[in-house]
């Protein structure tokens, strides 16, 4: 069973999709929209050992996101591992939240806006029903220090504010023309507004993209818990993992470089085998170039000694993980990531585990659109 589970965390082909929607009560099917691309690195995935990267980079939370991971060795075509991540703050209306509070949220605002809860499942199918094991993870993360808006975003915001001010003045002119019955004037301003919409929307889109990448010092704290159900027997369920970690990111304001450090504590108490603690310290450097990002990740694990080696080998061993990660945003709806390198060693096995994972995040369905009154 343990060997099967471990296969989920090593050579993995991941197909991850993100679907984001506003609360069902607040919208109909036509107003479903898709979230921006994001790697499925929720804490619940991390505690289950199926995340693409061990050192997550900070990301803009979405109201609701769904991640799917198909693991090598799984049966059938459908992914066997799922995660949902919910940002409660963004699930309801925020009528009093201003742009300034998003640009500079402060500590309390950053905590509220960034808090997410994630749930994930990972299934390892055995040759016999009693060998199968389903693991369930729950985690949260929060970003008490959210960095700053980038200089590029500041520049875009100033330009967009000017355009929106000018546009709103035109709209008032149009309203005056309507009251005066000046149909020609209304039509002329309508034509101006239509022409302006594309330019202003493009600028707004650029700003939204720029706002996703904050710069400076960013601190994120996460924790997660997992439970295993041997033989898929509910009554056999037991907590088999706990973890807490912090990531500190420094995103350089004027360079396309992010440096991330992580400190993680893990307590694993597998269904089969002895309990262990592990402390992981590591870092990741990310170099961004347009839609591409390349990164190198190094994590040093110090695991507590095993009292007795499990019969199938396994258990955590102290050692290093060193991987390279390439990410490419091919289109606004398609994100591809590839991870390759060596994973942490496994106790009792004289091999260096390989990490070779291909992650694809894709969006499908309706194009996002404005709904409501015309």
């Amino acid at each position: 069973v343990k060997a099967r589970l471990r296969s989920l965390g090593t050579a993995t082909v991941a197909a991850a999709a993100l679907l984001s929607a506003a609360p069902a009560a607040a919208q109909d099917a036509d107003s479903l929209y898709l979230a921006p691309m994001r790697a499925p690195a929720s804490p619940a995935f991390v505690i289950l050992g199926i995340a693409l990267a061990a050192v997550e980079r900070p990301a803009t939370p979405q109201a609701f996101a769904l991640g799917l991971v198909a693991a090598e060795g799984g049966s059938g075509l459908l992914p066997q591992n799922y995660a949902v991540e919910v940002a409660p703050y963004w699930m309801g209306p925020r009528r009093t939240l201003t742009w300034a509070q998003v640009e500079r949220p402060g500590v309390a605002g950053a905590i509220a806006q960034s808090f997410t809860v994630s749930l994930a499942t990972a299934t390892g199918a055995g040759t016999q029903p009693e060998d199968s094991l389903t693991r369930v993870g729950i985690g949260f993360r929060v970003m008490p220090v959210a960095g700053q808006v980038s200089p590029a975003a500041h520049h875009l915001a100033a330009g967009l504010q000017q355009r929106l001010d000018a546009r709103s003045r035109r709209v008032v002119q149009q309203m005056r023309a309507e009251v005066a019955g000046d149909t020609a004037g209304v039509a002329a301003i309508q034509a101006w507004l239509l022409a302006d919409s594309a330019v202003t929307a493009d600028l707004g889109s650029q700003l939204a993209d720029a706002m996703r990448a904050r710069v400076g010092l960013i601190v994120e704290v996460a924790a997660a818990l997992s439970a295993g159900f041997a033989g898929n027997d509910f009554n056999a369920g037991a907590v088999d993992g706990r973890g807490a970690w912090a990531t500190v990111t420094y995103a350089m304001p004027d360079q396309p470089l992010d440096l991330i450090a992580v400190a993680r504590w893990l307590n694993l108490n597998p269904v089969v085998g002895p309990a262990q603690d592990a402390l992981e310290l590591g870092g990741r450097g990310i170099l961004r170039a347009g839609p591409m990002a390349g990164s190198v990740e190094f994590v040093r694990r110090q695991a507590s000694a095993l009292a007795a080696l499990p019969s199938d080998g396994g258990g955590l061993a102290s050692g290093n993980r060193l991987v390279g990660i390439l990410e490419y945003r091919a289109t606004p709806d398609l994100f591809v990531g590839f991870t390759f390198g060596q994973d942490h060693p496994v106790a009792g096995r004289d091999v260096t585990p390989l990490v070779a994972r291909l992650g694809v995040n894709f969006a499908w369905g309706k194009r996002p659109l404005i709904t409501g009154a015309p």
Partner: protein
Amino acid sequence: MPTEHRAYAVGAEPVTLRIVVGEGQMGGVAVGVGDDDITAQNGLYTLGAGDHLVGQPAFAAVSVSLANPASRRTSVTYTLDGGVNDAFTLEQDLTGGTGGAVVDYRLFMTFTSAAGGTS
């Protein structure tokens, strides 16, 4: 574009309008009374004395861009104050939209006299 028409009963007191662009989105705001444009002071638009507003149309336009990547909502909250009744708040919102999409919110205001006259 979302449009609202509201009548507001006024006396002689100054009437003010406060506009909040919510959901952490960016917005441009313009307010006018008749042919005059009104500028804000500390986010508050003073439209004028109530008895001078009767008979004049007033306009508020808010152009909102979906620039907050964490939300696909836009909302505008208007609060009129200074009339004979308590301040009232009008909320307009939309859900869904691409990043950067622009939504123009419009509010037409007319003022009625507390003594019984209309605009």
